[in-house]
């Protein structure tokens, strides 16, 4: 695994070069928000930011995507084509928590038996360049409680860690090494690696918010029915913001759209917070109120995903905490559950 040292000020130039041959997604300031989006020719990526408002999962699992197109013929409506469009893409400035979400989503979309070709096609063509967190984190950051850390490399192909006025660049995968020529720089020194350890330790200690996320599994295993489930949902507006901003939420809907003789089948993000999510044609709904929907959200993240993939489906980015319009805090839910044991 190759490691290099580059000057901080060289980074934007390197990205510009990469952008000449690949589509680059990066954090960009858009009005009052920092968004993770495709870099337009006139745009510069942000280097100093804490995290983007939206999670970068949308590059592999877009909010809306065309799955296939079809056309009406006298004998019926028939398939016209399948859209697996995927060009070379570089994701720059992903935070370690969000990069970890790719590793978690891979477990679901790239299973042995059922593979999701739309996700996989995009993921395979993409190189993830992650920027370690070294600055004072958000008060809502809790990556260290769910298996991550501010300098974690899971899900990344290249990891950049700021040390003084330089970046330590670690090429972690063969895909990541493809970018080595763009970065240039000097070979990393032992001193730089030691410095990275210091940065890492400091950053880890700076994450003040800690929750017993692993410890509540045994309670969840045994308490599908518990009075506690009546206490979370009452102020929830079912707006779905938490699920749309969540880097690991992956639920989707499939719908059809037709205009004259041409049509397309789309996949759109969906949310377990919505009443219609599980409502059947008969009118029966296995999750009839917001209570059951919240239980599903907590169970899915901290029990079901653990049962199926041995990993918590939360990366501790804190977006759901920060943007919930009624201040529902997943950290408090987890803490409250831990006190019930």
């Amino acid at each position, binding site marked *: 695994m190759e490691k290099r040292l580059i000057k901080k000020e060289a980074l934007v130039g390197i990205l510009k070069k990469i952008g000449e041959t690949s589509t680059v997604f990066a954090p960009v300031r858009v009005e009052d928000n920092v968004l993770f989006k495709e870099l337009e020719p006139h745009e510069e990526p942000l280097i100093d930011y804490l995290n983007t408002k939206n999670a970068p999962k949308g590059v592999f699992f877009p909010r809306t995507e065309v*799955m*296939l197109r*079809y056309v*009406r*013929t006298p*004998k*019926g*409506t*028939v*398939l016209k084509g*399948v859209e*697996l469009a995927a060009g070379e893409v570089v994701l720059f400035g992903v935070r370690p928590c969000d990069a970890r979400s790719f590793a978690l989503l891979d477990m*679901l*979309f790239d*299973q042995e*038996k*059922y*593979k*999701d*070709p*739309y996700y*996989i096609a995009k993921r395979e063509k993409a190189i993830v360049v992650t920027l370690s967190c070294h600055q004072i984190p958000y008060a809502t950051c809790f990556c260290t409680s769910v298996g991550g850390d501010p300098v974690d490399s899971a899900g990344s192909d290249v990891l950049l860690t700021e040390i003084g006025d330089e970046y330590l660049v670690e090429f972690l995968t063969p895909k990541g090494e493809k970018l080595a020529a763009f970065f240039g720089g000097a070979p990393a020194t032992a001193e730089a690696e030691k410095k990275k350890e210091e940065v890492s330790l400091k950053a880890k200690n700076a994450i003040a918010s800690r929750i017993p996320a692993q410890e509540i599994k045994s309670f969840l295993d045994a308490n*599908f029915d518990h009075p506690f489930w009546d206490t979370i949902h009452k102020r929830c507006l079912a707006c779905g913001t938490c699920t749309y901003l969540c880097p690991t939420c*992956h*639920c*989707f*809907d*499939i*719908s*059809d759209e*037709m205009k004259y003789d041409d*049509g397309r*089948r789309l996949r759109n993000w*969906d949310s*377990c917070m919505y009443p219609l*999510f*599980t*409502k*059947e*044609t*008969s009118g029966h709904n*296995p*999750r009839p109120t917001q209570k*059951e929907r919240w239980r*599903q959200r907590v*169970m*899915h993240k901290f*029990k*079901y995903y653990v*049962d*199926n993939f041995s990993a918590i489906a939360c990366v501790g980015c804190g977006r759901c905490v920060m943007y919930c319009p009624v201040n529902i805090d997943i950290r408090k839910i987890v803490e409250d559950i831990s006190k019930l044991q």
Partner: protein
Amino acid sequence: MQNPYVPYPVEVIKIVTEVDTKDIKTFRLAFVNKEDEEKFKYLPGQFAELSLFGKGESPIGIASSPTNPGYVEFTVQKAGVVTTALHEMEEGTIMGIRGPLGNSWPLDYLEGKNVVVVGGGFAFTTLRALTQYMIHEENRKKYGKITVIYGARTPGLLIYKDELAAWSKRDDLDLHVTVDKGDENWKGREGFVPTVCKEVAPSAQNAVAVICGPPIMIRFTLPVFFELGFSKENIYTSLEMRMKCGIGKCGRCNVGSKYVCKDGPVFSLAELDKLTPEY
């Protein structure tokens, strides 16, 4: 990589209106491309997404048995957007199917055992597939006594009437058809399915019960089987949930950590006991 979201094109080659209310029809579909039929290798108890471009998809249990090659059948009640469009279709139309999806009835486990098939109303479809499979000449010797108890509210609501008439003449199948209330032409049995199960009283000795029907029927039928001595390991049923992808990705049909679409739809009561009661 096979794209599991792309349906195989099929032609509707036969449509049978099953009930006098005309809202349940059986669609016989033949693969447009012969090689797709090879890929669509299924077992009784599995389901497929019926795919109507421009309308959407609907997950429906396969009503035919692989022992009848050349076509796949689905019995569909007219209820939502997709099934209503399906009911308006004519023979000769091209549509799509995606699958086969899910597990199947426990065919290996049923071998060497007596099998009691209990169905209610329109939920008889994959049970019909199972029965067809078991009584097929190449398979019949693998199974012990086969008892089929099937009921509907009225004679006009019984599905597969011709097939039931043919089965009633067989001596290797113990068939009991009942209706909640008969009409002037009905000469058969009257009574609810649970009551008929009690009367028929199939032995639990080396036997497995496979039960599908409306929730109310299931609720009253299960105690009868427990009383007859059937253990939870030897009672199987099939669940339904709202579904989209059918392959455990879209996230809506889970019961606990299991997805009905890929880990089910068939579960034993013992397996269901371990899951959360959210279905």
